[in-house]
């Protein structure tokens, strides 16, 4: 087939035209082998620009298209659509980035122009070797597995469940609700936490599209976005339940820092020292009292327990400590409450107000370091170094420790089962901290709530909603799912079966055919990263849109 390459150079308004001599660029590439037309245009991504391109492709019978414009991150897809509309395969096109990589990085117009010419020549060299690739679609299962029956899991279940989308919720304990069930009230509204949960749990019970497994653990997740096979094992039941889903959400919550690692706080050594969770439970039971049954007159709340050991701030301890002051003041109005903190973390639109309203008579905030708890007669003595560097101490009846939030003990096991990695602090790693905090490196596996990092109830609900939204948008009942086209391929005759590719594949996309003793790419999972191509010693692995030939030609032109 004769190749007719069309090259279109975008001025991007003044963005490119000011720094790159467009006419010179056009002149430099117009007589190259295979190039039938080179044109410049003010703004190719505009509606007029796209229409112009479409007409040009048809008019000149262009078979291969090169656009010199901006970053592919911005408009690669735009021009692929143009190709489709004009009737050529969208993979027979290449974008040369002459804006971010030329115009925007130098004041020197000559240099920018020279580089632009090289990049366009490289794109022309490459596009000649492009092959048509066809879009692929697969059937998918709209059902969702949610692991963890706390507020995140419950909320997501209710958001997602519908007659054409079944939800499987797996909870390892014997009841739903998670951490919140221990709380009497939530901050800053100080409304009973049962308001948040009770109705939702009732709704769950009524919803026939939600199947809840309690006392159960997920044993196996095999497959890929749209088609996961799941095994769930219930305690004391031999046979695991098996079912299929299209997506998985990990809402497994968190644990508290192990206080054995900080013996200076005297926990489990002296009476009347409680963890935050123990105090929540005591408060929920209706009475705040010492071991001898008496009411505490003075209470110390020690913040930031384990912060140095973990190396991060757990975000929520300051706020729930303020809530504890409210609990104490409600039940023992004249109690003296002293807070020992290293930094106060009270961000957000309503937390400062909550803090101001909580401060006041008999409530102290002491910025301190080297806090230590010992016993003195029948009281507890807090030794500390204050803000001015002076040693000080205080006698109290009761101590509450606010320990750091850490991942649950089964986090590594779950990460392995779900095929995702762990990041900072050992929490599940998100795909991108800012751009994609609920997605993971594995398509179709989402992380929400404290499983992703310490966070409060509202942020947890925001995340579970976000992940639900992603699932609703991508896993549509009855609709097929488009999969990556630019995948890797392993040649049967070249593969030597050394499994090197399997070791370097980040997506678990390569399996081993034991009968043939060769590696096989599952193109549904493959994301086309090219690791296997680089690692394969026998040249058996190739990447469909990054063949050796394409890269070689591109480089050849770029450095010529």
């Amino acid at each position, binding site marked *: 087939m004769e190749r007719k390459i069309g090259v279109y150079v975008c001025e991007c308004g003044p963005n490119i035209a000011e720094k790159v001599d467009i006419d010179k660029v056009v002149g430099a590439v117009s007589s190259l082998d295979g190039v039938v037309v080179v044109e410049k245009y003010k703004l190719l991504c505009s509606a007029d620009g796209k229409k112009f391109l479409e007409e040009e492709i048809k008019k000149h019978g262009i078979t291969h298209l090169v656009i010199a414009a901006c970053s592919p991150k911005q408009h690669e897809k735009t021009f692929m659509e143009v190709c489709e509309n004009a009737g050529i395969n969208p993979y027979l096109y290449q974008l040369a980035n002459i804006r971010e990589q030329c115009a925007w990085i130098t004041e020197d117009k000559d240099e920018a122009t020279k580089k632009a010419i090289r990049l366009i020549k490289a794109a022309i060299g490459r596009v000649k070797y492009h092959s048509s690739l066809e879009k692929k679609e697969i059937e998918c299962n709209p059902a969702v597995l949610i692991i963890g029956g706390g507020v995140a899991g419950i909320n997501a279940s209710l958001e997602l469940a519908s007659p054409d989308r079944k939800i499987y919720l797996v909870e390892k304990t014997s009841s739903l609700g998670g951490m919140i069930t221990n709380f009497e009230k939530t901050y800053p509204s100080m409304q009973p936490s049962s308001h948040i949960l009770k109705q939702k749990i009732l709704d769950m019970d009524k919803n026939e599209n939600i199947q809840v497994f309690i006392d159960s653990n997920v044993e196996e997740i095999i497959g890929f976005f749209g088609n996961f096979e799941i095994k769930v094992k219930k305690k004391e039941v031999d046979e695991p339940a098996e079912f299929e889903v299209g997506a998985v959400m990990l809402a497994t919550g968190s644990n508290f820092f192990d206080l054995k690692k900080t013996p200076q706080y005297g926990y489990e050594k002296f009476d009347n020292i409680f963890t935050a969770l123990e105090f929540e439970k005591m408060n929920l039971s209706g009475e705040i009292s010492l071991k001898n049954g008496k009411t505490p007159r003075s209470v110390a709340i020690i913040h930031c327990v384990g912060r140095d050991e973990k190396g991060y701030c757990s975000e929520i301890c300051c706020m729930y400590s303020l809530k504890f002051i409210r609990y104490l003041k409600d039940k023992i109005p004249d109690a003296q409450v002293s807070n020992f903190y290293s930094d106060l973390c009270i961000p957000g639109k309503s937390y400062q107000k909550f803090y101001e309203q909580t401060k006041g008579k008999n409530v102290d905030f002491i910025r301190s370091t080297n806090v230590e708890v010992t016993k003195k007669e029948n009281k507890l003595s807090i030794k500390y170094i204050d803000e001015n560097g002076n040693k000080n101490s205080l006698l109290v009846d009761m101590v509450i420790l606010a320990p750091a939030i850490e991942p649950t003990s089964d986090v590594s096991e779950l990460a392995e089962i779900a095929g995702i990695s762990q990041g900072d602090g050992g929490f599940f790693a998100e795909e991108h901290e800012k751009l994609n905090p609920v997605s993971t490196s594995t398509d179709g596996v989402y992380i929400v709530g404290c499983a992703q990092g310490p966070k409060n109830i509202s942020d947890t609900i925001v995340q579970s909603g976000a992940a639900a939204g992603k699932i609703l948008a991508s896993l549509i009942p009855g609709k097929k799912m488009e999969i990556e086209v630019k995948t890797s391929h392993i040649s049967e005759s*070249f593969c*030597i079966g*050394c499994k*090197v590719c399997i070791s370097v594949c980040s997506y678990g996309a390569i399996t081993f055919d034991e009968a043939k003793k060769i590696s096989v790419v599952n193109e549904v999972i493959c994301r086309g990263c090219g690791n296997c191509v680089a*690692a394969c*010693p*026998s*040249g058996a692995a190739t990447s469909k849109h990054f063949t050796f030939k394409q890269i070689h030609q591109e480089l050849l032109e770029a450095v010529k």
Partner: protein
Amino acid sequence: MTKTLKINKNVEQGILELLRFLLDGGKVSGVFTLKRINKEGSVAYSLVTRSDELEDAVPLFPLMPVNAGKLLSRFSLRGKSNKPVAAVVKPCELRAFIELVKREQGSLENIFFISSTCGGVYPIEMAVDGAVENNLSKYWEAVKKGEIPAQIRPACRGCVEFKPYTADMTVDLVGSSDIDKRCMILLNTKNGEELAQDMKGDFLEKELDKKILDKFQNKREAERKKLFDEIEEKMKGLDGFIDIFGKCLGCHGCSKVCPICYCKLCEFESPDSEYKPSNYESDLKKRGGLKVPPGTVYFQIGRLDHIAISCVGCGACEDVCPVDIPISIIFKKVGESVQKLFDYIPGRDVKEEIPLLTFEKDELSEVED
């Protein structure tokens, strides 16, 4: 101290007695060893199941017709050996096999390894006209004294990995002055001990003589430095490089015999690597002249890139090179420098991962940002 079997016979006879004992007693079903093919000194690896077949066996013969690692890989590529086999191999052959096992090209299961401290092997060309036979007595004299025998492969002359790492049994050869009278076999593993159990001979506790082997090591190191320095001088710059590799015929013999070149179909032999008219045109346009067949230097660099991390320095490549390119020294030198980067000795331990397939956490900081 290591449990050691002492057989009061010369070392060759001792090993043969052990092999016969293993076969006759049903402790192994097969023995993998070198056997004489003719009187000119040609030997080949054979798999033997009857002890009378061991008559022509020369397990310690100083010749490596093919790296045994490559052969054992083919033996166990499509599945492990069903029956126990004892293999008598040189240390670098054992290491090559371990490297291949790491790449799923063989299985260690049911293979027991008998190796030795190694004095080196002669080039294959000496095996065709009786030269090896004529040299044998000189060879063993040198080995007994802990000296480097004359005329052995250059790769062997500079080899410092002459002690096997993972053999079940190690025969004490280098610097062992009484190998004419007795055969000392160190039983390094539980398997080694079990195999030798009930064998006629004395069992004692022994180690290899560190002093003697250190001295030998120093000699080898000095020799290696000489070889490396020479090649460094010759290979200087692009001209030096072309001087040396420009001779390459592109016969790919080196890759055929290399134990680490394990691909069934070499990409360099595939149609993809064949020059098209347009390739000739563009190369000629640039340079005005082109060596034919093209790509022979590229082939050598490609091969070097592929195998450097696992090159065991056996020297088989140089042995078969028809134009005498000092490949083994070049590959050894580059290989060792790459291996040093990762503190990796190919074939030291089957559990040690190939550096390409693993990473250390602090390496990540080098590529971050």
